[in-house]
């Protein structure tokens, strides 16, 4: 098996199999099926691009949701 890559997910190190897409990441962390905004290196990745967008070693990924707020 090829070596894992490491990305930064919401400020924490996250190992991933090489070639993982944004959708793969969402499934791994359990946020698939939720309304999540995804940023890779500060760029918004829209839902229609997530199945094809492959994550690279060292990518900074932010997953954001709507929580309670006034």
């Amino acid at each position, binding site marked *: 098996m090829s070596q894992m890559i490491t990305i930064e997910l919401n400020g924490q190190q996250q190992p991933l199999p090489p070639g993982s897409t944004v959708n793969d990441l969402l499934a791994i962390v359990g*946020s698939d099926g939720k*309304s999540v*905004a995804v*940023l890779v290196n500060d760029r918004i990745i829209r839902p229609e691009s997530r199945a094809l967008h492959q994550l690279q070693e060292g990518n900074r990924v932010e997953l954001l*949701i709507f929580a309670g*707020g006034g």
Partner: protein
Amino acid sequence: MDVLQLGSYTFSSRLILGTGKFSNSRVMLEAVRASGAQLVTVALRRFNRQQAEDDLFGPLSSIEGITLMPNTSGASTAKEAIRAAHIARELSGSAFIKVEIHPNPQHLMPDPIETFEAARILAKEGFLVMPYIAADPVLAKRLEEVGCASVMPLGSAIGSGQGLAMSEMLNIIIRESGIPVIVDAGLRSPSEAAHAMEMGCEAVLVNSAVAAAGNPPEMAEAFAEAVAAGRKAFRAGLMQKSGSAVATSPLTSFLGTF
């Protein structure tokens, strides 16, 4: 029909509800339903796999007639608020953005300079900008001039329950404003919401007063009734105040006094 107009959107409810500080999502959703609010605020937060149930988009979207108004809380500069607005629009699909920039967590007072700058840029980008501001008539006018959909001055500090402490300034803002004035923050009781509406506010935004009530859904309903009553009173036109008593019954021709 008397509706709240914000950009191209119209709302029959003039109560905007915040979704923070509720004991749990179930109570919050019950309160939203009970309030009849059609515009509801949410905050942008990092997804946490340990608290996956925090995601409110699904549950709120399932309530009919709700439009989400994300806020930019957490931002302490215009740049951060603009970034948050872009991400929030991606999630909400709504053009509404509550610009909220407070650099000091001790008093949570909004930064007028950063707020103005963020509002100016976001309005130009087509957002319906709803800036949370101190009760400053000059800033309110400047925000109107750069294309904000409303101004949202505070009644008093966020979550303080000090009511309409800024009512003198609010009166000036309302008198001068060509866009809806919405009191945001500080309200504690439905009577204060009614008072704000009688003064001529177009809507009120309430969060803590409902979330921290003994029975949040019941309080949400009470606020809805108070807002509707205050609006009706404003439209009906309040009587003039007088410095002395003015009799309501005839004072002559009474029994043996003629």
